[in-house]
């Protein structure tokens, strides 16, 4: 049975990444990060390629991928908004911030808006604990969230 073109392409791009990184000591996490960077998620089709490349079983690779919160099974929205929900942010009202963002976007945590514009995720500490409540939008850090900043963020991800 011929393989789907998409998976052959994934396999060849994944193989190139594995080739480049496999000589590192303990190469699996760096490889998974690169794969996620390349595809926006860790595609199923890449798992057996990684397993072959590193002489692991596919189950071992699957076990590692699913252990870590960062690795996605499917692509995220165009933007990823992470709201800190840890104690320092809780003391400054992160619950209310999350409720407001959820209401404005119409989604809950670990969900993506139907138009694919944004994925909302909780995060447990961004190290911005003296600037709570905090968030990260596509890798950019935002502190002391208030209604004005929340509305700005929502407008930005919607545009």
């Amino acid at each position: 049975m011929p393989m789907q073109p998409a998976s052959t392409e994934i396999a060849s791009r994944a193989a190139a990444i594995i080739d480049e990184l496999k000589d590192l000591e303990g190469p699996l996490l760096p490889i998974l990060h690169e794969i996620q960077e390349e595809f926006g998620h860790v595609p199923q089709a890449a798992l057996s390629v990684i397993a072959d490349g590193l002489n692991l079983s596919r189950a071992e690779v699957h076990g590692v991928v699913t252990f870590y919160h960062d690795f996605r099974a499917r692509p995220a929205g165009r933007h990823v908004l992470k709201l800190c929900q840890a104690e320092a942010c809780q003391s400054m009202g992160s619950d209310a911030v999350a409720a407001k963002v959820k209401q404005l976007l119409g989604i809950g945590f670990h969900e993506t808006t139907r138009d694919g514009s944004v994925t909302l995720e909780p995060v447990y500490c961004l190290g911005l604990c003296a600037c709570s409540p905090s968030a990260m939008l596509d890798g950019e850090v935002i502190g002391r969230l208030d209604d004005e900043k929340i509305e700005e963020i929502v407008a930005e991800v919607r545009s």
Partner: protein
Amino acid sequence: MIPRIYIPGDSGALALGAEKVAKAIEKELAERGVEAKIVRNGSRGAYFLEPMVEVATAEGRVAYGPVKPSDVKSLFDSGFLKGAPHKRWLGAPDKIPFLAKQTRLTFARCGVIDPLSLDNYKAHGGLKGLHNAVAMAPADIVKQVTESGLRGRGGAGFPTGIKWKTVLDTASDRKYIVCNADEGDSATFADRMIMEGDPFVLIEGMAIAGIATGATKGFVYIRSEYPHAVATMNKAVEIARKHGVLGVNVLGSPNAFDMEIRVGAGAYVCGEETSLLNSLEGKRGVVRAKPPLPAIQGLFGKPTVINNVISLASVPIIMDKGAAFYKDFGMGRSRGTIPIQIAGNVKHGGLFETAFGLTLGEIVDDIGGGTASGRPVKAVQVGGPLGAYFPRALFDTPFDYEAFAAKDGLIGHAGLTVFDDTADMLKQARFAMEFCAIESCGKCTPCRIGSTRGVEVLDKVASGIEAEKNLALVTDLCNTMKFGSLCALGGFTPYPVMSSITHFPEDFKPAPTRVAAE
């Protein structure tokens, strides 16, 4: 001399708008045709004043803050390049009370220098410790670190020198230095600040550790939530390699040491040393049973020093100024300085490096200035998500490993989260269990199952279902988790839970009683 403007590139400052301020300053310089050099320094840690912009004048540095982009035009108009008065004027940064009261040993350069200028680093005393170390016998370096009294700043407080001695004394063809930069505890940001603000001090500390123990390879495992720290450390390692600080001949000596930066993947438990090692090896971040100690069988089964960022970053000054100098600070068995991170609902939040021994009350009320909301302080969680909640009644506890342990608490990585009187301690206790359930690696039952059962039982308490009986059950469960878990995640989750129950019993009364009591 062209004027120099310092605008922090630290994540905390960026989160408060430092990038926009930098853009506004660049634009203003261009429009006015003024020449100036912009340095993106780290943060000095007074986050209530960030973004804090500094200018170098003939009389020294002058700080302005917190600067908003809309202030920039008027700053130029009033002549801030010469240090002139302005509504944001703060004067000499080291005279700002929050900073003037500190004893900066580990963080001496953080926020002062250009983080990626090795010359700047050397001009401020950098590499002196490493220069001394390459001229010494490994055992003598270990002896000096042991005598300094330095204890692991990650939370466990294990004597650093003793750990190093075990690795030195274990024969092997290969040894490793692993830096734990998986700073996942809420209220802590000291590791992030030093990696972003003074990365060479960590590199220097790791190189010294390598020479002291015979390890030739180092890894820094940084959490993925810290992209700026990862970027700065990667650049700093490149620079250090290029200038012979790392490589086959460290500072021209016969000692070889090189290192790599690795990025975590969002698992809190990887801050636990053995699961961090598994993660570095490319496995699930599952905790390992001890023994064997990582010092004997660590990364890839080889003898491994695994230290926190601040422990390693404190080594250069010990090797520069001597064990006695460092040991002179502190109290009891807690020697040297500790970077206390004051966070949460607090007026003057930030990093405060000081000798051990200040009381919790002094830190929260005098230095932190009380709550940001202006309401009374109800509780302070010390030591991150696994630390105990302390009420005002315990504010006389001195900041010291043993003193906190005696009050059923821990100082952990020295982060403090302040809560005002709107905090619901039952909710906080439930969160501690919930967080443990989310982050448990799943290897041991007390942590994996206990945390989920803990959430359920606390929910029953909240709903007023047999509150007394269920509280007794939580206490029993906490006892099992404390003594039956493999690592600190399950073992310490009882601290926030039990301290909430013990010190704030009114929050655990059944709902009707709580309403009636109000």
